[in-house]
């Protein structure tokens, strides 16, 4: 029962739901090309071909982190377009991947759009909080954003799978080369936004040198992330056992203990700065 329509619908729904990011450890699974390959393969009656295609796509995206919610490229979108191509049209995995990876870049844009629009819901929640409307807040935190996502996600995958590779290729030839390249450059830069946000949230100047040491240790020695983590943890423990940074002892105490400082002052130290970053007074 190999139905192209069914494949297109399932893939479209899959993209919608996985990119909607419901279930923190669920979506990491749903977005894995390996897993997608396996499931779509099952649907098409050929799980072996499916998982092989999925695994090949997985390799391209190994080690990705989406700091601060900024995905450097949308591997689920790529997989949901490439895997069906391989299953349904006997396209070679290599070719399918090379078609799908640029499409994945479009997923990055959609994700950013979504995070613009999501501001609507947090503003509505601000109002509902005043009324103590717990249920309303929940709806704004879950169902509405998910619903909004459907409009932005389902069509692209459905169309691509239903009308097939030709359409995609035409589409890609229309887009000028520099736009595609620019989008892949953006994929390399987006994590910078997330890392900078985290650094900003950690915030105290005393910690900044550690950032540089971590950065250049890896640049010069080619240490893996896990190797860096070992040294980082040990350095953190040693510094902390030695008494840490004295200036911060007072400061954090002031922020978190109530007697020693007036509420106003405490409040200003971190949260306000962050509020300004986000654009609210």
């Amino acid at each position: 029962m190999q139905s192209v329509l069914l494949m297109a619908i399932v893939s479209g729904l899959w993209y919608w739901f996985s990119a909607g990011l419901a279930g923190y450890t669920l979506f990491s699974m749903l977005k894995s090309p390996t897993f997608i390959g396996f499931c779509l393969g099952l649907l098409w009656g050929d799980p072996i071909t499916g998982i092989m295609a999925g695994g090949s796509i997985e390799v391209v995206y190994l080690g990705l982190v989406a700091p601060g919610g900024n995905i450097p490229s949308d591997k689920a979108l790529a997989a949901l377009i490439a895997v069906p191509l391989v299953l349904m049209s006997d396209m070679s995995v290599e070719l399918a991947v090379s078609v799908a990876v640029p499409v994945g870049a479009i997923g990055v844009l959609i994700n950013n759009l979504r995070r613009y629009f999501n501001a609507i819901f947090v503003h509505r929640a601000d109002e509902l909080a005043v009324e103590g409307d717990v249920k309303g807040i929940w709806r704004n935190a879950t169902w509405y954003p998910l619903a909004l996502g459907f409009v932005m996600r389902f069509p692209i995958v459905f169309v691509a799978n239903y009308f097939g590779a030709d359409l995609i290729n035409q589409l890609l030839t229309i887009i000028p080369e520099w736009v595609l390249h620019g989008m892949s450059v953006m994929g390399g830069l987006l994590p910078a936004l997330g890392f900078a946000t985290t650094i900003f949230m950690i915030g105290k100047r005393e910690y900044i040198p550690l950032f540089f040491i971590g950065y250049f240790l890896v640049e010069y020695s080619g240490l893996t992330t896990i190797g860096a983590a070992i040294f980082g943890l040990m350095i953190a423990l040693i510094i902390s056992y030695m008494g840490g940074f004295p200036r911060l002892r007072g400061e954090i105490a002031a922020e978190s203990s109530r007697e020693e400082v007036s509420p106003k002052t405490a409040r200003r130290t971190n949260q306000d700065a962050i509020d300004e970053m986000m654009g609210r007074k």
Partner: protein
Amino acid sequence: MESNNKTQLTKRDITRTYLRWWWTAEISNSFERMQSLAYAASMGPILEKLYGKGSQGLKDGLQRHLAFFNTQAIWGALIIGTTVAMEEQKASGEDIPDETITSFKSGLMGPLAGIGDSLDFGTIQTIFYSLAASFAVTGNFLGAFFIVAFSVIHFFVGLGFMHTGYQQGRKSIMDILQSGRINAMIQTASILGMFMMGALSANMVRLETPLEFNVSGSVINVQETLDGIVPGLLPLAAVLLVYWALKKDKFTLSQLMVIITIVCLVGAFFGIF
């Protein structure tokens, strides 16, 4: 200082709060306030139970937890678990000011984001997924298994963090806050988190320039020249520039996203990147 505790939270309450957090954490993520809506939505039912439906305490609580928040959600369960305990004590009459709760959240979210991103996603998930892919490409179904296994384990780690946070908070949050142990914890986490942000930036941020200058015969390859000075200058400059823009209140996150998009496209158009 025995408390006039009205409502006692059960283990199930904590687990359900985790499930809410686990489910919503990323759905409503926005450039403006990231996970704040998810935090408030997850805390909602607990606040209702503690302060009472329609009460002023509930309204205040919901607004309190709509403040900006962002972290890696699994390690973040430690934070949400502890704040549940704080709210419980506050509701029972302890004098815990809003600022204590808010600054506890904002003090730990950064370090735990750094640790969670680098450890869980940069390291452990990468190991699982590499194994998965190496099986998958040979058509071995074990590939899919490793993907599922990571999700399941990761789920339960988060649940464990949640209960740990709550227990610690219940037992000793007042002690902890006063003794400075919380401070040592935040410092250790911040150091590790910041170090890992550096390590991860070096591994993940990518920016190169194909520019070449041809000055009366000699060709200067800009990227090679930069690498000759210090490796990784451009990605580092990118991170620092964004940091600086945030720090100096120059731009909001949404504006920066637009700027980055434009810079990348324009740069690509003119062949700078």
